[in-house]
């Protein structure tokens, strides 16, 4: 099912980050968001996830707008942002279980997700002893453990070693082959074949003070 946004604008603080933005993601495709720092990649991902409401414009799935049923939208997506959402007092497995079970995953799926991200054997390590790369991998394991069709990834490969980047690449390929879709914000070339690129700078607002009339 297609997921798309029309005429999206986003205001953060007092700045118009982007405006008139359109995008569409079809099953099996990946959309890569590029643009310099501060161009609004993260803002767009948060808008797509529903955490932030777009100032103007609307988001929709083929069967209806997101605002009509945000819970249904949430059950269709998996968001991996900058923050890892890990608890230092919970073990690797428990950390993943927390989120995966909320999305209805089985224990078998959780175990295979840990394996895919190279975390088998460290299931019982408490979160506080994980390195930055391991934390990142555990965060990405949430994707492998869920059945959500839409993945929203914010700089997924940051802090990862080459082998893990490969693992992420194959994870995304597998997901797409199964009819899933991915939106990836990144500044490095991930080497994913056959993607659509959306450059946020194309939708950057003119550098004007949007509150001018209000003051």
């Amino acid at each position, binding site marked *: 099912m297609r997921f798309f946004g029309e005429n999206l604008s986003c205001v953060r603080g007092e700045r118009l980050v982007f405006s008139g933005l359109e995008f569409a993601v079809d099953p099996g495709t990946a959309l890569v968001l590029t643009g310099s720092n501060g161009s609004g990649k993260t803002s767009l991902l948060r808008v797509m*996830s529903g*955490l932030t409401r777009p100032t103007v414009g609307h988001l929709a799935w083929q069967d209806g707008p997101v605002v009509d049923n945000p*819970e249904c939208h*949430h059950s269709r997506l998996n968001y991996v*942002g900058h923050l890892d*959402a890990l*608890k230092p*007092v919970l073990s690797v497995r428990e950390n993943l279980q927390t989120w995966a079970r*909320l999305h209805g995953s089985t224990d078998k799926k959780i175990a295979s997700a840990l394996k895919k991200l190279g975390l088998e054997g460290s299931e019982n390590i408490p979160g506080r002893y994980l390195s930055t790369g391991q934390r990142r991998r555990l965060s990405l394991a949430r994707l492998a453990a869920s059945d959500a069709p839409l993945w929203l990834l914010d700089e997924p490969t940051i802090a990862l070693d080459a082998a893990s980047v490969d693992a992420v690449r194959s994870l995304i390929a597998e997901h797409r082959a199964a009819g899933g879709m991915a939106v990836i914000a990144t500044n490095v070339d991930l080497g994913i074949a056959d993607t659509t690129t959306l450059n946020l700078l194309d939708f950057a607002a003119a550098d004007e003070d949007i509150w001018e009339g209000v003051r």
Partner: protein
Amino acid sequence: MNALVLIMRREIRLALRQIGESAIIVLFFVLAAVLFPFGVGPEPNMLARIAPGVVWVTALLAAMLSFERLFTPDFEDGSLEQLALGPAPLEMIALAKAAAHWLTTGLPLMIAAPLIAVLYRLPDAGYGALMTTMALGTPTISLIGTVGAALTLGSRRGGVLLSLLVIPLIVPVLIFGTAAIDAAIGGIPVRQHLMLMGGFLLGALVLTPLATAAALRQALE
């Protein structure tokens, strides 16, 4: 409903792993209550007289210490984002958080309350009312506290602001909680006090998840 149970289980598991945090709240409750005789003198009749008020006021202050930990850690490490993006509506998350807060803070306070009452030689007739008012009042406090915690999320020095927001809202619980115990000791019917407290609890049960969810939505923007 499934999500409600899962979130509560997560909260309780986290609380058990960091049992020290709940223990500190109860310890503060006991210590603060023990301080009063040093200030007002050890005269037994006077202590018995002020016991209901002391138990309730110190319980409220102890609970106040715990609210800041309700959402802040989850907000800072991104867990709150993930909870909000889960299949459960934020209202349900708010309710689960309040329920878990009561189980890990309100319930221990409730269990410690009769111990303090013993120290103060609360007349025997007051214990029934003490436990009933605690059972009705502490969940109300947890529910109102979640609203305060959600509203002050992300603000600097949120703890002080939180107390300023929450304390006025829980004054009714304090008034009727102590009044019910006093009435029980004096042999007057306590029914109307308890019914009012039950009313507060039901009202809070319906209204606070809506307010908390709205505040969380704002904080996550």
